């Protein structure tokens, strides 16, 4: 069957492997996020129900850690570092440029077609290369607004070919 079943099956397996132990909530959520790329509300409700903890508690954990996201992410994730080193090297102009390029409004982080998600992160641990941008898994150092635009264009071109 399709991917929905495979994902759900994985969640069931994870819960079983963790013996429905509420103390393992965080690692359960991590695996779910790997599977779905985010934490869907229905899955969190399912987790709360099977682990016998309140939805408010699951929601609390899911929103506490920056690692977790409750919003679906786009196909391509652009993470822009806004840690101290990157910030003084003008990472804000990168954020602005790429958001404008993608036409994101105030609180939006993903494009409507779900092709891109922009994530601002506190520090990627590569301060020597500041300002740093990670596109999907690839690290790009010493970024400029022009370079980030061309990175986006490249992806757009690839997507068109497909």
């Amino acid at each position, binding site marked *: 069957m399709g991917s*929905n*079943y495979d994902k759900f099956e994985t969640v069931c397996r994870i819960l079983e492997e963790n013996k429905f132990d509420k103390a393992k909530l965080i690692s359960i959520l991590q695996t779910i996020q790997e599977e779905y790329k985010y934490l869907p509300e229905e899955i969190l409700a*399912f987790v709360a129900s099977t682990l016998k903890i309140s939805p*408010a508690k699951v*929601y609390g954990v899911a929103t506490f850690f920056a690692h977790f996201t409750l919003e679906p992410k786009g196909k391509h994730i652009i993470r822009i570092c806004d840690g101290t080193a990157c910030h003084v090297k003008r990472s804000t102009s990168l954020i602005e440029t790429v958001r404008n390029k993608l036409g994101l409004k105030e609180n939006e982080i993903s494009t409507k077609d779900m092709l891109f998600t922009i994530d601002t992160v506190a520090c990627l641990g590569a301060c020597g290369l500041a300002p740093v941008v990670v596109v999907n898994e690839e690290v790009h150092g010493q970024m400029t607004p022009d370079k980030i635009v061309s990175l986006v264009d490249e992806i757009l071109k690839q997507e068109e070919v497909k």
Partner: protein
Amino acid sequence: MEKYLMINGRKVLFDNEKNILEVIKRGGVELPTFCYHSELSVHGSCRLCMVEVKGRGILAACSTPPESGMEIKTNTEQIINIRKIIVELLLASHDRECTTCAKSESCKLQTLARRLGIESIRFKNILHKEQKDVSTYALIREPNKCVLCGDCVRFCDEIQSIGALGFANRGSQSVVCPGFGKELESSECVYCGQCARVCPTGAIVPKSEINYIWKALSNTNKKVVIAIAPAVRASIGEVFGLGGENGTKVAGKVVTALKDMGFYKVFDISFTADMTIVEEANEFLRRIEKNDNIPMFTSCCPAWVKFVEQYYPDFIKHLSTCRSPQGMYGSIARRIMPEILTIPKEDLVVVSVMPCTAKKYEARRPQLAKDGVIDIDYVLTTQELAMMIGEAGYRFNELEPSAFDMPLGFKTGGGVIFGNSGGVTEAVLRNVVDTKFDGVNEAEQFSLVRGEAGVREVKINLGSRELKIAVVYGLKNARKILRDVEADKTRYDFVEVMACPGGCVGGAGQPVYTDLTVRKKRAKVLYENDKTMELHKPKDNPYVQKLYKDYLGEPGSKKAHEYLHTSYKYKKRFKETLEISDSVENNNIKVNVCFGNNCTTKGSKEILKHIVNFVEQENRKDKVDIIASICLEKCSKGPNIKVAGKTIEHCTTKAAEEAIRAELEKL
């Protein structure tokens, strides 16, 4: 050896106190705090109770255990400054519309700001305006007034085992909210309102219905009748400096005030409490005789009823089907009163005054309505009644007491003690156990069910049978009892459950209290009131007898069932469903597989797998939509699936396959 602390140079002895805050209190100093409640776990988040401990620096008193010989200062300049800064910072992100706040005058933040002499706030206001949550009948959440002390979160989790509220986000973005940031109405909240009682500010408050009442009173076409619950007389005096005052006297003053406001008739819920006992005692005896759904659980606490409906549907049949006293009042007022009072039905407005926020929800239960007309129009809390008395300008202390209106004004002691934890049980026992102890004070025979503990067990002989009874408050305690009964670890015949600590006297609609001795005082008022009553057994109430004779027949009769009983329904906790098929279409065969916690552990995963494979093999993916649901509401019969609307209980892979095949063949 004598253990002591030196507090501000004074020697204060201690023995079992868990923290120095309690010892300091014993020494006569009330440290400021938002997050410390002796009933709850220590949180240590508000940092207001800071004290200076010699050799150890500045510590939070609530989370520091006492050690003999500690030298503590509670009022150094540094400490005072810290406290001021904390309060200023809280005020800088607080909605400071105090004059219009429901908690004004009983707000700890307001009191503390005044106590610390805060004249200006040096910090910029950083309040992010968030929307009020008015989704429930019982409570209003105002996130803009939250100080993040977590009292509500801990009460709901630790005492009620519900966890409807939780912390979300982090740092400056932290909030307290129901799961997924939704409205309270969509959560598992049972509306006990204890969150509002422990909230130091106005971030959660009972929802007021006062305006509707004034409006009804000023409508000359309407006859507004009102009834006050037993626990109200034990607490309303506190608002007017009459805490602990004789219940009959206080109730009498309330009657005078209500009459003056324009209420057509003022009744006493204690009367319908007597009826509840008569009906419930009869039901209990019948059930005992037939061994039918024993233990029987009381059903007068609507928070508890909702708790059973949403967490323990298999126990619904163990709940007494008797309406609560409020429910019985509603039914009698709406359906019989117009005839007794000779007024047209449509002119009647029915109001009750309750110590409780959940009663506001109860009154709107569809089961307490007939032909679309709800029995009770409005429910006021004790707090609201006190506010109305204040609003009208009555000098409460000077009011001459008046008598309740008949027939719903006469009560026995059994109806009055209803407001205390253990009261219902005691009243039922007075009714069912034929006491032959001559010379024993009737009112005190069954007082062994009284007490302050959250779980009390009593054994009493009923004829040749020994009755095992439990009296419980706090839903966490109740959950434990349910689990024990479920696992056959223990046997009970009768279990009384009240959600609020102490029973209704400790309800969230009562005047706000933090000192637990207040609750004891209220309980005492009701027990004292009982002593002064002429009659103590609800079945002896002549007006109850007459009402039965004129309108209802015998207790437990068909008519009595129609008027005085109710029904319960499983309440889904989760509404989420998950599409397993990659695309779902309207006309396809729907297959729901239950993934509630019961079914999940009973093998829904294997069934789902089988169904998915079967549909794939048959190549009918385009015709069958598979959905995982939490849940299908038949937990004791799991695993359950639903194929094209038909539920299959105790489902097996084979049964599932056959059902789907049958549906496919119909195509």
